[in-house]
């Protein structure tokens, strides 16, 4: 008791870099934390608003004002928009989590060197995942590959778009080479890395082909298409993942046994405390403290718990553009029922709520859906687009169409017409999944699709806070008018 005080800072019960990065298990733990970054509201919610709202396929209720939804929808953007900053900041939060692992992992003894490389590969996948979002949304951004020094962060210039892509491709190639194939929800494996790589190459190829700004540096678009096709082919041939037999195997209950989801969010569908998000509430009808149901009688027709905010729904015209036989229309709901047996219907007019993220379990505004970042039908269409109107290309798009109960695509289309059809199919198949803006940007169609010239159509402005606090960044007013 009569011990003398010792002015050393010796924390107990608190993890610091020094006392935590000491074992293999702790690296894995930190890796799970890095995956968990996608569950940050600023990331996961803004991921949908930034990529969907401005494309016209999503209807936003006029009173939905959180997270700059109206500004994004109306392309009324400027560097001070909070949603841009939030997304930017949380993406870098994920990058930092990956970088810290990569900084410390070599100091730790591993029983098996392959495990070390697997963890490195997963960390580099995570880093590439965030940079791929940042470069497509903002263009030139600072690239960090080691733990960030707070002082240095105040004076780090942005890397060019090409440099960012080089880093992404290097990271993903490392992941493909070092991460084995496995299927663990919430984690990325070899197949996920290949899928991501296929999307990266397709983005480069089409951006170059259609003349999207800032992609002039891409040397050979055909090589990029070939790379995309090769990576997508590897995914399609995966032994563990495949298209589900029906879209309803993937939706709306977010069955995590689904074989189609290549990389899902690290959320736990059953958890009450851990791993939950409130994502579904933004797509759900506006209700409070109640369950609500589809018109299918029975116990499986609960579509939501504790209500929603009715922020985002499927655009009516886009909804009508589907073939009436299209089963994917059933992923949207117009009438909700407060009675499990179809009683008390409430018609929501022309509004079509998205059931892709609906979950029948959850409590108090937190849902338990298992959303995903990569899924097989996306990669099938990536492949189709990369190979064009070949037999394999037709085969892949028709797999998607047939599954949705619509017939084969007209045979013998020109490459341009075929690719146009792929784009249309992507819109029907992948609506409200966070791909729409990227498809428009890489195919140089933003203004055409929006129907008017808009500011920041190809790259969003770097958030003002970054410009203010990082002296290395120069504002790029050119972004406003890029076409």
């Amino acid at each position: 008791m009569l011990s003398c005080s010792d002015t050393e800072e010796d924390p107990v019960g608190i993890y610091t870099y020094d006392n935590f990065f000491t074992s293999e298990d702790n690296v894995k733990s930190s890796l799970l934390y890095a995956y968990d970054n996608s569950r940050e509201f600023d990331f996961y919610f803004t991921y949908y608003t930034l990529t969907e709202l401005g494309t016209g396929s999503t209807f936003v209720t006029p009173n939905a004002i959180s997270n700059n939804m109206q500004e994004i929808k109306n392309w009324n953007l400027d560097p001070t928009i909070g949603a841009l900053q939030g997304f930017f900041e949380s993406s870098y939060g994920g990058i930092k989590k990956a970088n810290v692992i990569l900084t410390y992992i070599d100091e730790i003894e591993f029983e098996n060197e392959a495990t070390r490389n697997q963890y490195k590969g997963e960390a580099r996948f995570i880093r590439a995942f965030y940079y791929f979002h940042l470069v497509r949304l903002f263009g030139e951004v600072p690239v960090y590959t080691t733990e960030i020094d707070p002082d240095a962060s105040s004076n780090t210039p942005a890397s060019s778009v090409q440099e960012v892509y080089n880093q992404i491709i290097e990271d993903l190639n490392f992941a493909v080479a070092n991460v084995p194939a496995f299927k663990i929800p919430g984690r990325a494996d070899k197949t996920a890395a290949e899928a991501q790589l296929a999307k990266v190459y397709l983005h480069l190829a089409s951006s170059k082909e259609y003349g999207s700004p800032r992609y002039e540096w891409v040397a050979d678009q055909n090589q990029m298409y070939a790379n995309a096709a090769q990576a997508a082919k590897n995914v399609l041939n995966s032994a563990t993942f495949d298209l589900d037999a029906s879209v309803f195997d993937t939706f709306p209950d977010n069955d995590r046994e689904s074989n189609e989801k290549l990389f899902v969010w690290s959320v736990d569908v059953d958890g009450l405390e851990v791993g939950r998000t409130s994502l579904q509430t933004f797509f759900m009808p506006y209700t409070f403290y109640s369950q609500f149901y589809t018109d299918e009688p029975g116990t499986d027709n609960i579509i939501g718990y504790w209500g929603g905010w009715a922020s985002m729904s499927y655009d009516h015209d886009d909804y009508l553009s589907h073939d009436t036989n299209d089963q994917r229309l059933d992923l949207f709901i117009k009438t909700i029922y407060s009675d499990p047996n179809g009683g008390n219907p409430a018609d929501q007019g022309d509004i079509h709520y998205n059931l892709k993220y609906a979950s029948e379990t959850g409590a108090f505004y937190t849902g338990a859906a298992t959303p995903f970042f990569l899924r097989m039908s996306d990669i099938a269409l990536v492949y189709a687009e990369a190979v064009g109107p070949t037999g394999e290309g037709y085969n892949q798009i028709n797999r998607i169409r047939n599954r949705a109960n619509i017939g084969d695509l007209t045979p013998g289309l020109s490459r341009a017409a075929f690719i146009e059809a792929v784009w249309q199919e992507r819109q029907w198949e992948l609506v409200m999944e966070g791909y729409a803006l990227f498809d428009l940007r890489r195919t140089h169609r933003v203004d055409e699709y929006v129907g008017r010239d808009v500011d920041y159509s190809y790259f969003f402005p770097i958030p003002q806070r970054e410009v203010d606090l990082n002296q290395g960044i120069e504002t790029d007013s050119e972004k406003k008018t890029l076409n």
Partner: protein
Amino acid sequence: MLKFDLKMKLTTFLLFTALIGLQANDGYAQKTKVTLDVENATVLDIIDDIEAITDFRFIYKVKVVNLQRKLSIKLEQEKIDVVLERLFGNTATDYKVRGTQIILRPSSDKPKKVQLKVEQDPIEITGVVMDEDGMPLPGANIVEKGTTNGVTADFDGNFSIKVADENARLVVSYIGFATKEVPVLGQTSVLVSLNEDAAGLEQVVVIGYGAVKKSDLTGSVTSIDTEQIENIPVNQVGQLLQGRSTGLQITAPSDDPEAVISVQIRGASSLFGSREPLVVLDGIPFGTLQNLNQINPGDIKSIEILKDASAAAIYGSQGANGVILVTTKTGSVGKPEVFIETSYTVGGYTKDFERFKDLELYANIENTENINDGLAPSFDGTVRNGTYNPSPQEFANGTYRFYDWLPLLRNLDPVTESIRAGVNGGTENNKYRFSLSYLDQEGSVKGDQFKKLIVFFKDAIDITDKLKFQISTSFSDGKREFGTAGNPGRAWIKPFNEDGSYFIPEDEPNYFHPLVQKEDQFNQRTDFDVLANAELTWRPFPWLTASSKFSYNHLADTFDEYQKAKYTELFNSYSGIGSVREAKQRQTYLTNTLTFQKEFGEAHDLSVMVGRDDQIKKNRFIEITGRDFVTDDLLNENLPSATIENQLIDQGFVQEDLLSYYSRVNYNLLDKYLLTLTFRADGSSKFGENEKWGYFPAVALAWKMHEENFLKDVSYIDFLKLRVSGGITGNQGIQPYLTLPRLNDVSVYDWELGQNVLSAGPGDNLGNPNLRWESTEHYNAAIETAFFNSRLRFSAEAYFKHTTDLSRTQFLAPSAGANSIRINNGVIDNWGLEFQLGGDIVRTENVSFSADLNFSMNRNEVVDIGTAAGSGLIEDFSGNQFIDTGLSVQGSSGLNMVNAIGEPLSSFYGFISEGVIQTEEQKALGFGARRNFGDFRYRDLNGNGIVDDQDRTIIGDPTPDFIASLNLSFSYKNFDMSAMFNGVYGNDILDRQREFRPYGKTNAWSLDNQETVFPALSNSRNFPNNTFYIMDGSFLRLSALTAGYNLVVPEQNFFKKVRFFFSGTNVFIIDNDFEGYDPEVYEADSSLTGGGAIGLYRGGDPRQRKFTIGVNLTF
């Protein structure tokens, strides 16, 4: 009834005659012969005789000549030289004859020095200590000067002490009286008469790691007279200190047993660090004033407030907010004395709680609100969602009536019972005190109860003359049952059926009765605290003292909480939630000091103290929560029966170590010039290698001008001291571990294992190894005076505090992946003036009346908070540059309280309201969507024709322009009375509920009521912060009134003292039309700058008016 000091007058007169006497014949001394024949007369008597029969006049200073010495002299026709030699030869007094003047002064050649070396048997001296009126002073201390040899006078003032030889001097002291030095001079019996020391200048004042005479203080220290606050029943010492010292601002917003009060000494000087002074209990740094709840206020002997750097720098890094020293009572010599004090207090509210009793009016107002909001009226006589809503007519015709739920949910006259008892006594070598106090206080809501038992024991043992040991322990066992306020619900539903059972409306089977709601929540805290101190003092030589002090404080709090299923199911899907939280704090403290004190000749008095402190604080908690229970029956005593996934554990541990070296040098030259040098070095575990140590020096000078020759004999000046000081104190300003990069640990779901796992990784907590102490330069200048035998006292102080290296947040570029880092940068200045005026207006044997006025003003300014980017500085159109404090208030989003450069800390921010919109054109001056008739309109500061966010500016300052207090004491024979007035002036209050209270609603703007400041009725229009919500917070309160009567107890009675007392707190208040309950407001909120918001009114549990009767018995 004025009573002048006759001796002082005489001295002046003699000086006068001496000047005249210069003309007299030089040969008088040679010519004059004196005859004396006196037996056992005092020197004074003999001098008087000589003056009566001759022209000789004696000139001397009363203090330095022993006039009480008795001797017998028989002389006939001797020259004055011979007489004087008989009188003063071989004594401590020298004489000199100049003409007819005989000048007496202390002998300079120490004639007895030779004899000192001779070993002598101790001499026993007996004596009695009395006051001026001859009343004995029991408990007076008698110490042989320069030794540790001391005794205490008994009940009759008698004492007996053995001294080394006849040259010994006795130092006699008693609280409230001037200390007197009495030479023994061969007498065996002395009578000591002490003069009342109204200014307390001779009183010994505790300072950090030592004590000095009040008159020798060089720093700014206020001593609080604990006698004055003895009979005021509060359970928080902080409340007692309100108004008792200049420079001390205490804001106590509530009478809740454990309300968080704000304590600030000389303004606030930290953004995120603590603003509370350090409390030191019996020499042990103890925490904040809140921590003193562990101590029974009845055991407190003295409280000192250290304000300037000279006084506080000895506490270094803990001293920047000032220091409060609390000393507990020690036993006194004598037979065991048993004391019992018991009191009974009834509280009440100074105003009725605002609520609608006229339900028709209420329904109409609610309906109007809905109509204004474009909704259907809510009181329309229909059933909605299973609830019947009566119409205004049904209220008017009495179908539904008002039931007052308030008395069912609140304690409108909460009772506090208090008993303090103990025993006090001891011998010269072993003094003890044992006390027990029990407090039982009702809170302001039903079911809220606070109980506390404190047992205190202290024993001071003199092992030898040179070795002393003291031990003290305090056990405190407390329990707080938190009542839940309970939602009063609908006032037209009756609470009870005829038979007293709870009334449930027939058509509402799910009606949740408010009293059931209360019963369904169980929430209590129990604490058991142990404080143990031990101190060993060794004084091998009179000039050297070594002291070692050890303290261990263990605080254990247990929080029990349970919400029954019926309650929790209302809000979520769990059936019952229960938790137990155990929090333990352990503080170990070891201090070792060495004090050297010696007089060198008559002129130099030097004391040097060096020391080292070791301080370790460990905080640990564990919390277990369970949810979803099969039954509520076991409350939170059966958490394992919760379903597995609903068993949650939380845990934490924090340790802080502080290692300090310090030294103080006091040098006293000629008892006129005083110098204090202080230095402390603190090493803290909170800081990284580079900045681990902080250094805190201070210097102070004081000049006791009244000791100078030119003032010495000015009769009406008793005391005049000038002092200046300057130094540096620090504030740690941060929580532990902020220098380290800490990982976040969160639970994630591991799909591989199929379970939740703890995972960790880098989050927002970037460590900054270069964090350092906030540092405050503090300069102080003061004058202290006492006039007319200390009947008039005045002192003034001026200070300037310059705080640099403010610990604050530096924001990082988003690409850093973290929001911010803690850094040191920023400057706050405080300056102020303090005045103290005291007067004994009447001072006679039977009647006394005195008044003391304290006046303090402090100006506070944020000088620098870094660059716009680095600290997130916002600049508005008006040129204000500020950071947000983070204050969020109901009904207002955005900025409410800011720290702006050039403005006081925590200034209010918002629009300037210009009234409500009355015309179509004025609608342009509304804000946002709120621009209808009856909404606020605002001043368009930037003149762009619309009101936008650039039209906001600083709109108020919650810090008072000045605070003042007046303390009146009156006594007549055995009756005494005192009153304390306390006031603040010129502070603003942010009252965001202003238009929502019944007064605001009934006076709302409407077409029929256009002359009003209140906006139109609405439920949905939340206005941004603006001047409408800023109220004047000035007030004057009679905060305490005490009257007591001491029964005349005959001697030898069983009872030694019987005192009855009556007291009132918060007797009345005068404010400037504050519409809320009470303008003394403070909201503790750890998320805010400085841990709380002064000046924010949220309508919390307000101050009560309390009356107490009690009795003190001693036998």
